[in-house]
């Protein structure tokens, strides 16, 4: 559906996108992930024809965005980072303009507007001035605009930025719904969001594509794989000997304090964490050693993201990462 090949974009001397190539298939939700300043918005702007690349091509449904812009743009609905709205208009007037610009007329236009208004959930505000709407509703009006003309691809640039938690959940659910009928590409620097919504993830760092796969496959990429942590009331040597006999562990670290050992063990690849935990507890129990606080540690997208973008880019985004870390930790608890 979308082919991006060797895309390069310079802003003066600054290299924003560096030889980016990927292909996007029909009917999935794709996540564009990267720290701030990684080149996500620039890539999206080039894909939608808002910017011209310094080099490289973008083809939408076989149409080149620069050479056959009209055919290519008809296949795309785009919501930029800041919803492009006219505050002096009502959503109804605004959507009429967009629909007409996309070549819709008369009955078809009215029907499309009605369906976009309904999908975006803005029926009750369609005749209020956009300037008086809340941020969440403005975002929805922006999404309704992207839906007009039945485009096959919907591109959303950071669609949940600045929304309250309830609105974020609503928009995420809405994007999931959209994904059933459209190809959706969304960009985000919030990892939990991408993990929750996307079937495929493109990780981009310093303008380069560093990974492109399903979130669960990306997790497998990690060198630091899944593991198990627990505490056991035993001496270090006892714990050591039981762990040495246990199956499914590739290595461990033991810290002893006040007669209690804290163990962090890594699982060998392909091991079922639950089964290993069961066997471990039974092994310690058989020796009469009580086990506390046993937890499985699963590698998540955050680890992948950190590992892949660590080489220099991570310092650009410590704030966002911290935010999403606390979010995902809270989720686990």
């Amino acid at each position: 559906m979308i082919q991006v090949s060797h895309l390069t974009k310079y802003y003066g001397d600054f290299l924003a996108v560096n030889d980016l190539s990927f292909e996007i298939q029909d009917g999935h939700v794709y996540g564009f992930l990267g720290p701030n300043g990684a080149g996500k918005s620039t890539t999206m702007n080039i894909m939608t024809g808002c910017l011209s690349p310094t080099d490289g091509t973008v083809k939408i449904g076989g149409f080149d965005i620069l050479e056959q812009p009209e055919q290519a743009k008809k296949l795309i609905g785009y919501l930029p980072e800041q919803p492009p709205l006219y505050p002096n208009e009502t959503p109804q007037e605004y959507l009429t303009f967009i629909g007409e610009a996309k070549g819709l007329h008369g009955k078809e236009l009215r029907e499309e507007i009605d369906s976009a208004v309904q999908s975006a959930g803005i029926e009750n505000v369609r005749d209020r001035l956009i300037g008086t709407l809340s941020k969440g509703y403005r975002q929805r009006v922006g999404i309704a605009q992207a839906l007009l003309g039945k485009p096959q691809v919907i591109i959303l640039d950071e669609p949940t930025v600045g929304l309250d938690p309830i609105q974020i959940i609503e928009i995420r659910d809405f994007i999931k719904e959209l994904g059933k009928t459209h190809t959706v590409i969304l960009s985000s620097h919030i990892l939990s969001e991408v993990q929750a919504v996307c079937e495929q993830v493109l990780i981009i760092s310093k303008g380069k594509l560093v990974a492109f796969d399903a979130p669960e496959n990306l997790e497998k990429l990690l060198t630091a794989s899944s593991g198990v942590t627990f505490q056991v009331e035993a001496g270090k040597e006892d714990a050591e000997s039981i762990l040495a006999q246990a199956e499914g562990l590739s290595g461990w670290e033991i810290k002893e304090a006040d007669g209690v050992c804290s163990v962090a063990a890594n699982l060998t690849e392909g091991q079922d964490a639950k089964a290993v935990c069961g066997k471990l507890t039974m092994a310690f129990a058989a020796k009469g050693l009580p086990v506390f606080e046993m937890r499985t540690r699963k590698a998540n997208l955050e680890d992948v993201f950190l590992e892949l973008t660590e080489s220099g880019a991570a310092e650009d985004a410590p704030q966002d990462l911290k935010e999403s870390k606390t979010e995902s930790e809270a989720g686990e608890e």
Partner: protein
Amino acid sequence: MIAVLKHELRSAFHTLTIYLFCAALLCFVGVGAMYYNIQASVANFEYVLNFVSIGLVVIIPVLTMRSFAEERKQKTDQLLYSLPLKTWQIVGGKYLALVLMFLLPVAIICIYPYIFSKYGEVYLPAAYGSLFAFFVMGAALIAVGMFISSLTENQGFAAGIAIVLFLFNYYSVSLAEQVSSTSYGSAFTLCIIAALIGLIVKTLTKNNAIALGVGGGLGVLTIVSYLIVPDEFEGLLPSIMEKLSLFDRFTTFVNGVFDLTALVFYASVIALGLFLTVQSLEKRRYN
């Protein structure tokens, strides 16, 4: 293009600008008609238009300042770029909308000579010919004002630059008498203009090579021509200034001559303004 035109007209009536513009133009014409036609009992409506033309220096920039600067400020230009519209359709739609907004008060003004003709001898062809030229001149100013608006995201800045440019154009004939008419003076001033053009190109393209090529090329061309045919430069600057004046050409119509060359000149300014606006928008994608 029609979609953009309809949208522009619809949103214009949501703001005060169009009402203020119409009120200001009608007020100017009203005062002029009262002063010339009623108090001084002159039957030539074209004199009123000549009097009003300085008003255009201020009110046209007020009309055009929003057109692209506002889109850029609110980031709605991104929307226009992502819609399946060609750049000329966006520019054409916006320009037509502005011209129609200008046509609205002009249409009302059309009634004035007719009313006056009921109460005295009014030479209607001269009055309506001048009114037509007044409209075309306004359309040319709108094209220039719109181009200036496409260069910035600051409405006030767009209006300010347009007012200064129009004022300079309005007084360029009087100024032409003051500037040096010697061949050396003309060549020197043209070199400075070449440097300024180079500077503008640099701001627009952010490309030093092109700017140096354009500015330097024009400068060298001026110097070489000056060295070969210095006599041709005698009085060149004042004559260029006179020829470029949009307002001076309008006085021909006021004097009762329907000057087709002036209309062609206005049409060229419109075409150039629209072309530059399209280029300015296209160029922004390459930034």
